[in-house]
């Protein structure tokens, strides 16, 4: 098994295969499963993602608490009729990322990538770049294997849990994963995927997990929005040949250490940061009533 990003990229270069292929072959070998079986399971995940994206941009979903919902649809409608500033592809990714997280907050069905709180970034970017790159269904499935390969490295060397590592471990990881996958789909090299991952994650370091009322809603939905836009920019930087001065594995290690040093109040306890603001506390009290005030 590849233990870090360097081993992953080296394996791809040595065998002259894509990152997605390294991940597929490892899965076949470690779990003694056929290629068809693995591809079929990933395609089912892709189907779940597609349904969540479509539901979020067409329905005004509302979360159980009423805190979030409908913004993905709102942004999608805005970009259809206006000459937008940040460009339609970027906003399409943002709208689809938000949509997925709004469906998640509404206790709808999603696929964790790598977590539910960060489930918008990977499918949001995928279903936006799809319209520009016109991938085959297989290439779309491969996009998820690239994301999974880099997520695998992060999960084993740092963390993908907000409670253990803050939002940098969730949306930060998802952003790096998506950036690497966009690069492969756009025809970049495995090395460029690794650079995109490093560049994207570097810019997410230190991001705390401070959900209002402890709910995966505020600021999670909008953090996914920006994760999607970051991933696109990081992919373009890497495709332009720009490199991260700090190697990818060292960035992941830095993320792990920052997570360990992060105070508990900022790791998914719903106490510090935005959750601890006057408005954050008021919203919590309104949602949970007297019971939570104690």
């Amino acid at each position, binding site marked *: 098994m590849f233990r870090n990003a360097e081993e992953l990229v080296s394996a791809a270069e040595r065998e002259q295969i894509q990152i997605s292929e390294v991940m597929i072959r490892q899965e076949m070998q470690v779990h003694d499963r056929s290629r068809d079986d693995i591809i079929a399971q990933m395609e089912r995940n892709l189907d779940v993602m597609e349904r969540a994206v479509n539901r979020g941009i067409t329905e005004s979903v509302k979360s159980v608490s009423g805190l979030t919902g409908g913004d993905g649809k709102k942004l999608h409608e805005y970009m259809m009729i206006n000459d937008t500033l940040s460009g339609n592809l970027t906003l399409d990714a943002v709208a689809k990322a938000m949509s997925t997280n709004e469906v998640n907050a509404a*206790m709808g069905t999603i696929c964790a990538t790598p*977590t539910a709180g960060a489930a918008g970034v990977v499918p949001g970017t995928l279903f936006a770049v799809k319209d520009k790159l016109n991938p085959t269904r297989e290439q779309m499935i491969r996009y998820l294997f690239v994301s999974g390969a880099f*997520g695998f490295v992060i999960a*084993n060397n740092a963390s993908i849990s907000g409670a253990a590592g803050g939002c940098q471990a969730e949306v930060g990881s998802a952003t790096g994963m998506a950036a690497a996958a966009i690069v492969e789909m756009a025809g970049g090299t495995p090395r460029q995927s690794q650079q995109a991952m490093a560049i994207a994650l570097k810019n997410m370091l230190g991001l705390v997990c401070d959900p209002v009322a*402890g709910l995966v809603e505020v600021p999670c939905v909008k953090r996914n929005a920006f994760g999607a836009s970051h991933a696109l920019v990081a992919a373009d930087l890497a495709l332009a040949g720009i490199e991260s001065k700090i190697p990818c594995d060292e960035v992941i290690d830095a993320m792990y250490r920052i997570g360990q040093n992060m105070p508990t109040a900022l790791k998914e306890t719903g106490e510090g940061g935005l959750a601890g603001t006057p408005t954050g506390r008021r919203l919590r009290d309104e949602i949970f009533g007297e019971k939570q005030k104690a």
Partner: protein
Amino acid sequence: MKYRSVFEIIGPVMIGPSSSHTAGAARIGLVARQLFGKAPQEADFHLYGSFAKTYQGHGTDVALLGGVLGFDTSDERIKDAYREAEEAGISSRFIEEDEVTHHPNTVKVVLRSGDYEMSLAGISIGGGKVEIKELNGFELRLSGNHPAILVVHDDRYGVVAGVASILAARQLNIGHMEVSRKEQGKEALMVIEVDQNVTARTLGELKKVEHVRQVTKIHE
């Protein structure tokens, strides 16, 4: 390496809103249910750390209860777990504990039916992946790196051999194994880590071994 499959990263397919607090919680509840072997009359959930602080907002309560009802992470009935539990005659309690645990997302599940009680402590480590740390006071030292089978059995001769021979017949290689008991002749526990995935059929065969009470698996 804690994570071994791409589907632990891209997945699980689940009901929102949190992989650690909803999907992970549902999985711990489901493992408890499988080990208990039937629907309990009472289910107590002792919550620690982030679980204690944010369980309502994340649907951790309905997920744990849903798991105890036998629902998987993607089962839409999780949302209605309280009503489903009432219909199934299961009463539940959620207890917020102040004690600091090693991992922030920890829950101790206590299931009761008549005189029979079972307790299980689990942690949700991220992305829907869970580890079981304790069963009926037995501390489990699972690496978490391999599929694991838990076998609750009576402390009698031949049970270990019976289980091992079924695994051998299915060509499942044992990487690590522990047998522990509280008292000679009473309840005992086998924890077996194997290199290959364990099918439902194999679990069914293990359950038929004489003096075996319950069998479940933890990792995919």
